[in-house]
C-alpha cells in the first residue's frame, strides 16, 4: 500500500478542506449575527431595569485538611537569686490540628516543642490530643484522649492565653508547671437549668508530671468532678462559679484529695468590648495528702488577679498568690505580680511581668519576664 502523497494529490485536498472551512465559517457568521442581536437586546433590557447583580466569584479556601496553626512563645527572664540570672529562649512552640472528623465527632491535637528548663534541650510532646462527640443524646458530651483536665479556670487554659507569664504559686505547687493534663475520658452533662450549669466527670490514668498525683504501676486512676455555673448578670457582666474535687494516687502509694473553688467576674461592655474590659478571677485550693498510715498533710493555696483593659491594645494585670507547700503547710509563699500586655493584633502580643516572692523560711526574690507570642495559621477561640 502506497501512503506517499505527491504535490498533485495534496493541492486538491487543501482546496477541498478550505472550501469546507470557509463554508462552515459563513454559516457560523450568520448564526453569530443573530445571537449578537439577541444578546444586545438582553443587555439593553438589563441596563433599563437596573437589576444589577454582583458577579458570582469562586469561593476560596475549600480544603479537607484540618485547621493548622502555630503559636510561638519567646521569653526573656531575670531572677534575682542563683548563678544564672538572665536567660532568653523559645519557651514553647505549639502546633495545632483541628477539624471535625465526621458528623459524630471532632478532633483536636496540640503538639508542643518546648525547652526543658534543666537540660536546655528541646523536646516534642503531645500537649493534648482528643476527640469530642457532637451527637450524644441527653445533652451529654464525651471527650477521650489526652487533655487538660477541668480544674477551675487556669488548668484548662493554654498558657499563651493567660494574662500573665508565670503561673500562680499555689497552682504550680499542686499541679506543676504543665498543669493536670493526662490520658483518659471526660463525660460532661449540660444540666437542664435556666442558667448555664455543666457537670463534668473525668477519669484519667494518672498524672505523668504532677506534684500531687502519680502514675504508678497499679490500676489506680485519678477521678475528677467539676461543676461549672455561669450567670449572666447583665448584658455587660457575668459571673462564673465552679467547684472541683479530685482524688488519686500520689507518689507514696497513698491518696491525695484536692478540693477547689473558682470565681470569675467579668465586665465587658457589649458595644465596645474590644476597647474596655475587666476580669476579676480567683481560685482556692485545699489539699489533703496522705503519705502513710501516720503521715498526712493538709494545705491551702489561692490566687486572685484583676485584669483591666485600659485601651484597645493595652492590658494591665495585678495578681496576689498565697501558697502553703503541699507537704508542709508551715512553709508559706506569698507573691505579688504586675503584668502589662500589648496586643498588636489578635495574632501577636508582647507582655512584661514583674513579681516579688516572699517565703517565710528563706529570703525573698524578684523575677522579671518578657514574653512575645505570635500566631500563624488558624487559631480558634479560647474559653470565655
Amino acid at each position, binding site marked *: 500500500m502506497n501512503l506517499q502523497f505527491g504535490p498533485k494529490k495534496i493541492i486538491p485536498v487543501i482546496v477541498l478542506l478550505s472550501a469546507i472551512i470557509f463554508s462552515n465559517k459563513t454559516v457560523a457568521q450568520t448564526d453569530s449575527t443573530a445571537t449578537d442581536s439577541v444578546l444586545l437586546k438582553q443587555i439593553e433590557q438589563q441596563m433599563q431595569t437596573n437589576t444589577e*447583580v454582583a458577579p458570582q466569584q469562586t469561593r476560596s479556601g475549600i480544603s479537607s485538611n484540618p485547621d493548622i496553626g502555630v503559636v510561638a512563645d519567646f521569653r526573656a527572664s531575670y531572677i534575682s537569686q542563683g548563678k544564672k540570672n538572665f536567660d532568653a529562649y523559645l519557651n514553647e512552640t505549639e502546633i495545632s490540628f483541628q477539624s471535625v472528623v465526621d458528623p459524630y465527632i471532632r478532633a483536636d491535637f496540640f503538639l508542643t516543642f518546648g525547652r526543658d528548663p534543666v537540660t536546655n534541650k528541646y523536646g516534642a510532646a503531645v500537649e493534648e490530643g482528643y476527640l469530642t462527640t457532637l451527637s450524644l443524646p441527653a445533652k451529654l458530651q464525651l471527650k477521650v484522649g489526652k487533655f487538660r483536665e477541668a480544674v477551675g479556670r487556669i488548668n484548662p487554659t493554654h498558657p499563651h492565653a493567660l494574662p500573665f507569664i508565670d503561673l500562680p504559686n499555689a497552682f504550680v505547687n499542686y499541679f506543676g508547671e504543665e498543669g493536670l493534663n493526662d490520658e483518659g475520658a471526660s463525660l460532661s452533662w449540660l444540666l437542664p437549668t435556666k442558667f448555664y450549669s455543666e457537670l463534668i466527670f473525668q477519669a484519667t490514668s494518672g498524672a505523668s508530671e504532677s506534684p500531687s498525683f502519680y502514675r504508678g504501676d497499679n490500676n489506680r486512676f485519678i477521678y475528677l468532678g467539676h461543676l461549672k455555673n455561669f450567670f449572666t448578670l447583665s448584658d455587660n457582666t457575668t459571673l462564673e462559679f465552679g467547684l472541683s474535687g479530685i482524688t488519686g494516687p500520689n507518689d507514696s502509694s497513698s491518696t491525695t484529695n484536692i478540693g477547689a473553688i473558682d470565681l470569675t467576674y467579668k465586665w465587658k461592655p457589649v458595644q465596645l468590648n474590644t476597647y474596655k474590659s475587666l476580669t476579676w478571677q480567683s481560685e482556692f485550693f485545699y489539699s489533703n495528702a496522705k503519705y502513710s498510715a501516720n503521715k498526712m498533710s493538709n494545705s491551702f493555696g489561692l490566687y486572685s488577679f484583676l485584669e483591666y483593659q485600659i485601651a484597645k491594645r493595652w492590658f494591665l494585670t495585678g495578681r496576689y498568690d498565697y501558697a502553703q507547700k503541699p507537704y508542709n503547710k508551715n512553709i508559706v509563699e506569698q507573691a505579688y505580680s504586675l503584668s502589662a500586655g500589648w496586643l498588636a493584633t489578635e495574632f501577636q502580643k508582647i507582655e512584661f511581668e514583674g513579681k516579688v516572692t516572699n517565703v517565710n523560711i528563706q529570703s525573698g526574690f524578684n523575677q522579671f519576664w518578657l514574653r512575645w507570642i505570635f500566631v500563624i495559621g488558624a487559631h480558634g477561640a479560647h474559653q470565655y
Partner: protein
Amino acid sequence: MKKIISIFSLLLIIISGANAGSIKVVTTTMDMKSITEMIGGNKVSVQTIATGYQNPHFVDPKPSYIISLSNADLFVTVGLDLETGWSPQLLSSSRNSKIQKGSPGYVDASEGVGLLQVPSSVNRGEGDIHIYGNPHYWLDPLNGKVIARNIASGLERIDPANKDFYEANLHAFFAKIDLKLKEWDAKMAPFKGSKIIAYHNEWVYFERRFGLQIVDFMEPKPGIPPSPSQLVKVIKEVTANKIKVIISSPYFTTSSSDVVAKQTGVKELTLATSVGAFSSIKNYFDLFDYDVDQLTAVLK
C-alpha cells in the same frame, strides 16, 4: 361528659398554643433574626447571639449562649468567616446534632451570594483579610433576598408541612424588598458617585448597591487601628476630594475621626450595620431606611 369535652377543648387550645412559634431558631446576628422572623412568622421563636450594636467579628463566646443552641431546631449563620472567632466553638459545645454544619438545621445564609473582594491569595500582612470574600453582604438589600431564600429552605427542610406558608412569606418579602429598593434608590440617586471615607471595610456591598465611592478607610488595613500617618493621608484626601462625610459603626470609637473632622470640617456619621444598632431599627427594612435617611441628610 360536658366536663370531659371542656377539658379536651382546653387541652387542644393549649397544644395549638404551644405549636405557635414552636420551631426554635438561633441566629448569629440580628439581621438574620429579623429575616427569619419575617419568613417564619408565628411558626418560629428566634433568639440571636450578637446584638445589633456589637462588632460581629468579636462576639464573646459566653457559655450562656450554649443553652439556647442546645435546644435549637435551626441555626442561621452569616457564614464566610465573619463569626469564625466564636460560633464554631459554641456549636461544638452545644451537643445538638440537629444544627451542626451539614445537618438539616444548619443554614449558611451566604450560600449563593455574589461575593465581593474575594482574595486571590491570603496574607495577614494585609490586615484582617477575609479568605472567602467580604462577609458584610447583608448590607445590600438585594442580598437580603438570597438570605431569605436560604432561611426559607432551612425552615422547609425541618418543617416541610408548612412549606407553602414559608414560600408565601418569602415572596411577600421579595415583593417588599423590590418596592423598598425603588424608594431607597430614588432617595440615593442624587448622590450617586459621592465620595466618602469609612472607618472599616464593611460597606462594600452598600457602596456598590447605592453607587457611592469609598475613597479610603480610617483603618490603614482592616482591623488595624488608625495610625497618625493614616490620619494625615485621610485629611489630605478629604480636602482634595471635598469629602463630606466619614461613616462608622456603633462599635468603633470616634476619637480618630474626631481629629479628621476637627482639621477638615468633614461630618462624622455613625450608621447602622445591623438591625438593633439603634432603638428605632426594629427590622431589616428599618436598617436601610435609617442608613439612607441619615446619609442623604448629610450628603445634601
